[in-house]
């Protein structure tokens, strides 16, 4: 049912470089269509040359005059961030997707305990702006490597209770106390690299936090394994597609002309979920719950493969 999102054309209206490896782009609509408001924690896909990367919107969710994203240069990445750092100039046009809500704050929380590492702080920047308007109670614990803080502007927000940590160890030392001191009705939201998220959530679980009060967004996904070759039979189109080792199910299916939507390509976002009609998927994603994985009727085409020779898919 997800209607195909209509891409938007935006112009780069401003570029800031708060540190040597972070670039903040301000984007305005380049057409008569206004930008839409968005849920805090939303991201947009940006066409970066050949690649499409997802970035959190860091501005005010109700500000429809511009979008802002913060891009960390990933030197050994697939090239999307290098494109936005090296190729893009003020005034250039970019193609983006409409905002997608992937990590919205839980409305029913009486207090938000936010923990972010590095560039993982970006979704919380729009949280903070939304909370400033609604008066929601929150505190942000933000760990970063260098003494430089690319998002120092956050400290100026009204109502912000921000504590900064330099280095993972200094946050780790404070975590038990943070988790134990949280009042009734507090929800914990964590964003950063997977290892850091796992560390925080595992500690929260052992200290008695119920699962439904834990929220996270992973900023680095999984690598798709090369895997064994297998065959995908597409029930709706009647096609049979061979997936060689080293090619993802997503790429093979799209290569055969099926418009399967995707976003992160890292088993995180859930966009390329496909219903499995027969065969057993080999799950490598972070999106499906363990119950969903056990049920075996869904597969994330970007990273997951087949346990055996053949999958029949609802495509």
């Amino acid at each position, binding site marked *: *049912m*997800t*209607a195909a*999102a*209509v891409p938007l054309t935006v112009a780069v209206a401003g570029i800031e470089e708060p540190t040597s490896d972070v670039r903040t782009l301000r984007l305005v609509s380049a057409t008569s269509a206004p930008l*839409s*408001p*968005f*849920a*805090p924690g939303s991201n947009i896909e940006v066409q970066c040359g050949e690649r499409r990367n997802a970035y959190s919107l860091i501005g005010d*969710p*109700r*500000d*429809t005059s511009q979008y802002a994203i913060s891009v960390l240069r990933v030197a050994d990445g697939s090239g999307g961030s290098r494109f936005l750092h090296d190729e893009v100039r003020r005034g250039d046009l970019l193609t983006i997707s*409409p905002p*997608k*809500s992937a990590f*919205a704050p*839980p*409305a*029913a*929380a009486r207090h938000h305990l936010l923990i972010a590492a590095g560039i993982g702080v970006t979704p919380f920047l729009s949280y903070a702006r*939304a909370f400033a*308007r*609604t008066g929601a109670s929150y505190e942000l614990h933000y760990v970063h490597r260098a003494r430089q803080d690319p998002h120092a502007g956050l400290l100026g927000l009204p109502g912000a209770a921000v504590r900064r940590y330099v280095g993972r160890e200094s946050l780790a030392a404070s975590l038990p106390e943070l988790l134990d001191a949280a009042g009734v009705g507090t929800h914990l939201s964590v964003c950063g690299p997977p290892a850091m998220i796992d560390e925080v959530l595992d500690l929260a679980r052992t200290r008695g936090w119920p699962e*439904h009060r834990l929220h996270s967004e992973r900023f680095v996904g999984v690598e798709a394994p090369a895997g064994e070759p297998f065959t995908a039979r597409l029930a709706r189109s009647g096609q049979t597609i061979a997936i060689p080792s080293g090619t993802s199910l997503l790429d093979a299916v799209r290569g055969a002309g099926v418009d399967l939507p995707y976003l992160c390509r890292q088993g995180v976002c859930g966009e390329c979920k496909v219903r499995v009609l027969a065969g057993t998927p080999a799950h490598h994603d972070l999106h499906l719950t363990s119950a969903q994985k056990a049920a075996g009727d869904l597969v994330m085409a970007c990273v997951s493969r087949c346990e055996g020779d053949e999958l029949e898919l609802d495509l």
Partner: protein
Amino acid sequence: MTPADLLPQTLPARIARFPFPFPRDEYRYTANVQPAPAFEPTVVGGWGDTVVEVDEHYLAELEERAEILAEDPERSITLPHMKAAAWDAVLYTLQGFADARPDVARLSIDGDRVRWENDLLNTAIEFVVGDESTLPLDPLTWVGTQVQEDICLLDQREGHLWLDAGLVTFAADWSLAFDIGMSFLEFHGPVPRVHEAGVMPAAEQFLMRLTPEQAYRRTNWTLTIDRRMDVSTEKYDVWGKDRRLLTLEEVGERVHLRVEVQHLVRLPVSGAVMFYIRSSMLPMHELLLVPEWAARARAVIEELPEDMADYKGIARYRHLVVQWLDAQLEADDPQSAAEAA
């Protein structure tokens, strides 16, 4: 010649734009959702090209809503965590009104400052999003002074939807104050048949995947005696007895086909799911102006299984409606009228 050509040239808008809900001669519960807005033609006109609908009952229904709220403030409830959703609903609804009726309404937004003009009410107001003191009422109750729609706001958490805010003055045999805080599956608990078929979990899954880019809608229906908007559980003592006192002679004037057009919207900032419930009614004697509708409604009402008729509250008198429609349809049919002569 199409049936529409045989009709009077100037059917009033309440008939021409009536969202007649029956595509076939029998009715069962389904999720029956479709993208919105989209014009749905009927034999005499059509409906659905706007999300907010303003009709000839506008002033009367808003006045009635104000009276209902004055007597029973619990018809509008916003749980504390739904304030952001209520503001979202205000902005979405005013935009929907301005889109539907640019001839009488204007919305301009500059950051958090909003200016709204509604000529139908001679209203011109400026307010600040997020600042309740700039509106005369709480946001959800206030926006209910501008549109005829009832509004429900559902929070999405823990893998379910929860009815945590609403402005519902025109409920068809339910109660917002009773249902508030319930999950989607809980407040649909009394609906017969749908649970065995798994309709409700599927509908909930559908709603949880809604995105702000695309609204959807569905219709629901019942019969209401007299043009009574407020047939809530709270007022059962007032309207309940009509169902057993109704006589055959009264059917044409008093029994109304009541259709709810429900729009389903993902609000952009709060992420809440919004239901508009817009109730329209046509009395049986007006339904008869469109013979296809009268015949179709007659078939549906007669065929409806007893448990569904009971849930809709029409089990006691639907035979009278069928009997009345039969008599009228027969009298209107030139062939049978000739045979009778």
